């Protein structure tokens, strides 16, 4: 009989327990409400089955090659405290010139560097590790943490995150305050096992801020999991620029829930880059709650080798006169697989909404596969909405044009792929970060 290599028939779950949760909470000296929140999330987690291909949202993503015995145990619980110099210098470089407003660096879920300028602190801006915030700004964190944006009930991994989140950041910008300098978070993971990072950003009425979060890990032998949650709360007439760049190693599986809420006349400029992992399943949801709210979502992704990215986006128009603009651009080479599934929704009778969504896919090999599934559910008549997914390869006509000027074939390919992403990279507001991303893209093209 032929030997067939099978993936596990039934879905194993990570080897974590309520006991891990209690230990984690005790180690952090968490207030009772936080422990309770973990316990409630754990209950939800236990009540939900592991997602399978039978679930609509997971139809195109089979993660059964994860070895939970490696990727599941909490990475925070073993080994010595790592040094900051494990992190590549480019990832730590200041965002603008020599300046950034603050820097939080986590290695394996432990905070190992904290910089925060007096100038921003004196403005009343709060930027700190989330555990610390839940003590120092208990009332605020309790009101928002997994209450308004990402909920433990959002899914199995959201519940697991609520129960076992290992570390996080909290950025709070009070009303009418403008954070002039950008803030920066680096999440670096050197170990196998699971980290569960949280980002909670609250930008109050008429306030402004820019935050960049980097996720990265060096090449590894053993599997790791990142089970993240990101919550962005943008108040009335507030403005948030949020950039999240993911470059985990090829042994990492990411399962994340990210949701933003934007108030009246508020503005969110949300950029996500997906380069790393073995497999990524991310939910990115934009809720426009206030009249006149506006959100732009930009995403770039580049899958090579046997990477698998599954990005679900939602643009929910919950108020009249709201507008969204989503542009995702991705490439896939080798035998990689990408899925983008987008949805624009409105509550009934939300008039004068403007929702736009397009995902452009660049297929760089015959064996790669890209799915792009746009969607629209609008229950109003006075609306301007459009949605599309496009698919293409490197056009011979363009290749010929470049080559007719003496540019070699490999160089012409590089230029066209760089050119494909350029429009999105230009949206990243930091030149140094753009250069780093361009290098990462070129490394993938040449690999």
């Amino acid at each position, binding site marked *: 009989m032929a030997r067939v290599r099978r993936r596990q028939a039934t879905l194993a779950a990570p080897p974590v327990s309520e006991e891990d949760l209690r230990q984690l909470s005790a180690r952090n000296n968490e207030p009772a409400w936080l422990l309770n929140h973990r316990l409630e999330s754990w209950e939800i987690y236990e009540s939900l089955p592991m997602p399978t291909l039978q679930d609509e949202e997971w139809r195109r993503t089979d993660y059964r090659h994860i070895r939970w015995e490696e990727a599941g145990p909490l990475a925070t619980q073993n080994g010595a405290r790592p040094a900051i110099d494990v992190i590549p210098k480019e990832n730590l470089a200041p965002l603008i010139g020599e300046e950034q407003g603050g820097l939080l660096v986590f290695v394996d879920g432990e905070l190992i560097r904290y910089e925060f300028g007096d100038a921003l602190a004196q403005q009343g801006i709060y930027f700190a590790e989330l555990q610390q915030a839940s003590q120092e700004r208990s009332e605020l964190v309790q009101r928002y943490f997994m209450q308004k944006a990402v909920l433990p009930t959002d899914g199995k991994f959201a519940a697991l995150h609520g129960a076992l989140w290992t570390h996080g950041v909290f950025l709070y910008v009070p009303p009418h305050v403008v954070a002039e300098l950008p803030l920066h978070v680096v999440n670096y993971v050197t170990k196998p096992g699971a980290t569960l990072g949280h980002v909670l950003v609250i930008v109050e009425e008429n306030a402004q801020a820019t935050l960049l979060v980097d996720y990265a890990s060096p090449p590894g032998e053993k599997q790791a999991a990142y089970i993240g949650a990101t919550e962005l709360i943008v108040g009335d007439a507030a403005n948030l620029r949020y950039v999240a760049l993911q470059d985990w190693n090829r042994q990492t599986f990411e399962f994340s829930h990210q949701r933003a809420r934007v108030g009246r006349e508020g503005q969110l400029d949300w950029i996500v880059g997906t380069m790393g992992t073995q497999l990524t399943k991310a939910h990115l949801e934009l809720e426009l709650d206030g009249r006149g709210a506006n959100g732009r979502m930009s995403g770039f992704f580049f899958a090579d080798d046997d990477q698998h990215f599954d990005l679900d986006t939602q643009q929910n128009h919950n108020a009249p006169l709201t507008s969204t603009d989503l542009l995702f651009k991705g490439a896939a080479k080798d035998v990689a697989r990408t899925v983008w599934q987008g949805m624009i929704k409105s509550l009934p009778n939300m008039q004068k909404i403007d929702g736009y969504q397009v995902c452009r896919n660049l297929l760089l090999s015959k064996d790669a596969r890209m799915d792009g599934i746009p969607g629209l559910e609008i229950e109003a008549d006075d609306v301007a909405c459009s949605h599309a997914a496009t698919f293409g390869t490197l056009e011979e006509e*363009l290749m*010929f044009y470049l*080559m007719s000027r003496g540019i070699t074939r490999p160089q012409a390919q590089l*230029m066209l792929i760089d050119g494909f*992403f350029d429009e999105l990279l230009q949206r990243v507001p930091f030149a140094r970060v753009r250069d780093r991303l361009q290098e990462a893209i070129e490394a993938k093209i040449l690999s």
Partner: protein
Amino acid sequence: MGATLEIRNLWAGVEGEEDAILRGVDLTIQQGEVHALMGPNGSGKSTLANVLMGNPAYEVTEGEIFFGGEDLMEMEADERSRAGLFLAFQYPVAIPGVTVANFLRQALNARLKAEDPESKGISVPQFVRLLQGKMSQLKMDHNFAGRYLNEGFSGGEKKRAEILQLATLEPKIAILDETDSGLDIDALRVVAEGVESLKGPELGVLVITHYQRILNHVAPDFVHVMYGGVIVESGGPELALRLEDEGYDWVREKHEIAVPA
């Protein structure tokens, strides 16, 4: 030694199609000469230009092309370019995300690297000076350097950008495929002066055109008429003037039998 372009009995068509578009073209262009190629729509002029440049959309079924004694058919488009051949396209394509400046710098660097694999390429200040000089000469707004190549360019702007590339890359033989079409009178003068200033013993030019007006600026030594994929008439400047006056009817009548429809 002059880099002569020699085309002998060239037959070519669209890759994968039976019917030939070029049906036995013979033409020789020396450095320093200006040739005009005229002929009705669809007669095969752009096909010839593309085949010479090595466009993989076309397939050569018979004949030979030599450039400076080398077999052009053995070379890919980029090698042909680096050997000194240039084509200003009739319909230049837009290159999303690649700026004019980046594009031209890469094209120059490709030449330097082909000569010397160790070359680090042209320095940025040196390149900027070069590019700005050429743009001024062609009366182009320097902002063009930062725009994505041909994206959203007007018809005339595209043609000017082609000549900018010609001026920067300094080829030995340049083919201008209807570079004069779509240009207003002032733009035509600027472009023609640009070509004129590049002309000299180092540059051979093949001007593909429907109009005499560009030939008033760039005076041809030879004029050829293509009809049905063959060069059916060759002569001096007076041939272009006759076509301007009389159109192609006489050509059709004379060569109908030779060229089946």
